[in-house]
């Protein structure tokens, strides 16, 4: 029941495929509804993985499959969020959420007619991440953590089956970050969406993920796979237990080795 599969993928940026590949022999498989995390040393091609899985880039060799279909164009069933919230400053938070619906079918042709229904949906989503009533505010009236919540909502508004997160909490302070871990945890639990989280924060990966992939230094490939089976729902307290620390240490050892090998 694999939902996202990369098989023997090689990707090289630039024309003609010359130069050092960003990823080489990259294979991984994420099940439907699973929360997967990808960790690795910086520059290991984690972001390339994001682009390959969403159909923004296509592999020079190997295959990428999402939802049973070989990826040959943008997948459309994915939502994305990044370290920068990238909200549009001339739109209110609510209108920012509606942006994907103005692009993707079938909403695109409906949004004008069913505006009220879509706005209600946006407001419900905002409320679910603790942003009730913030819809009419402009992004710059929100704190960094609130902007990131809004950015998550924008990634989810079109009900994607795959959520791709590229270090979404990297720019936040430690407390806000942990708050948002719980927001993501609850969103995942409530919707059963498949999540791929790219991060360099090992605690974040261990707290949120069902399965963690460790990538090597460039050219990136998977050098270790770790199943995390702490029972759900997980409380933040779990991050202070010995078994949790063991997982983090184990991951850290892999990454240290990967850095040395580079």
């Amino acid at each position, binding site marked *: 029941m694999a939902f996202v599969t990369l098989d023997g993928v090689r990707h090289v940026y630039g024309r003609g495929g010359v130069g050092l590949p960003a990823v080489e022999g990259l294979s991984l498989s994420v099940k439907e509804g699973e929360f997967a995390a990808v960790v690795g040393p910086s520059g290991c091609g984690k972001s390339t993985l994001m*682009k390959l899985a*969403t*159909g*923004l880039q296509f592999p020079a060799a190997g295959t990428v499959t999402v939802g049973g279909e070989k990826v040959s*164009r*943008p*997948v*459309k069933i*994915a939502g*994305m*969020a*990044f370290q*920068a919230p*990238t909200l*549009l*400053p*001339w739109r209110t938070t609510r209108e920012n959420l509606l*942006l*994907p619906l*103005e*692009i*993707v*079918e079938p909403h695109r042709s409906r949004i004008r007619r069913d505006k009220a229904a879509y706005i209600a949906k946006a407001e419900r989503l905002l409320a679910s991440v603790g942003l009730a009533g913030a819809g009419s505010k*402009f992004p*710059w009236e929100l704190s960094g953590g609130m902007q990131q919540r809004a950015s998550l909502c*924008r*990634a989810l508004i*079109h009900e994607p089956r795959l959520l*791709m997160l*590229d270090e979404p909490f990297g720019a936040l302070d430690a407390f806000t970050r942990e708050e948002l871990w719980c927001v993501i945890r609850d969103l995942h639990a409530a919707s059963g969406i498949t999540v791929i989280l790219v991060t360099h924060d090992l605690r974040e990966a261990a707290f949120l993920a069902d399965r963690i992939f460790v990538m090597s230094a460039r050219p990136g490939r998977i050098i270790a796979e770790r199943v995390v089976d702490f029972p759900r729902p997980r409380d933040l307290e779990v991050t202070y237990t010995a078994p949790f620390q063991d997982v983090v240490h184990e991951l850290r050892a892999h990454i240290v080795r990967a850095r040395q090998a580079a």
Partner: protein
Amino acid sequence: MSATLFVRLAPWIFTIALLVLWEAAVRVLAIPVFFLPPPTVVAGAFVEFWPAIWKNSLWTLYTTVVGFLLAIGFGLALGLAVGWSRFVYAGIYPILIGFNAVPKVAVVPILVLWFGIGTVPAVITAFLISFFPIVVNVATGLATIEPELEDVLKALGASKLDIMRKVGIPRALPYFFGSLKVAITLAFVGSVISESVASNVGIGNMMLQAQAQFQVPLVFAGLVVLAVEGIAMYAIMAWIERRMTGWAHRSGLAQG
């Protein structure tokens, strides 16, 4: 008097102070009127030559605005094209820079050759000198879309046109309106240059004739007219900018 009122009055206080200083300096140092006329004498020239000043200033304003409007249309179109395509950008940018580097006064003789003296060269010179900042700013606004946001939209299957309509063009608007303030000022430079070299109407021509007849106060009156028209047009552009792109001026510093 409150501090904010003081700040609001500051432009008037400084302008009046400058005029008083000017008047005083000319009188104390006994500078001849044909060298540097004091403000009171310039004001006298305004009264004496008002019909000519009025007619010529309207003419200059007209040629400037027509050239400026052409620059907006052309600059917007070219800026969109340059910002749209890396190919067009790479090809046209060096040409634009070379074009902008040519002093426009050197182009006027060619324009006269093609169109004769008068309004047309003035309009075209105003256009030529003022479209460049518009092109550069519009293209910059389009070219600086955050790549992450582009990815978000592309992953949803957004076309280039979608991305331009939803993100690129709104994003470029503050750059565009900002460039209008620069462009309108340059447009005056263009039209007055052309009027001075090759015209029989306009403020530029009036000043040249006044200079030839040694009516120095009238020359200075021409300068004042140009300054007033320039400030007025700049203020209109600044007002439009603020109306259209208030979201880009959210800092208290910009508003205060």
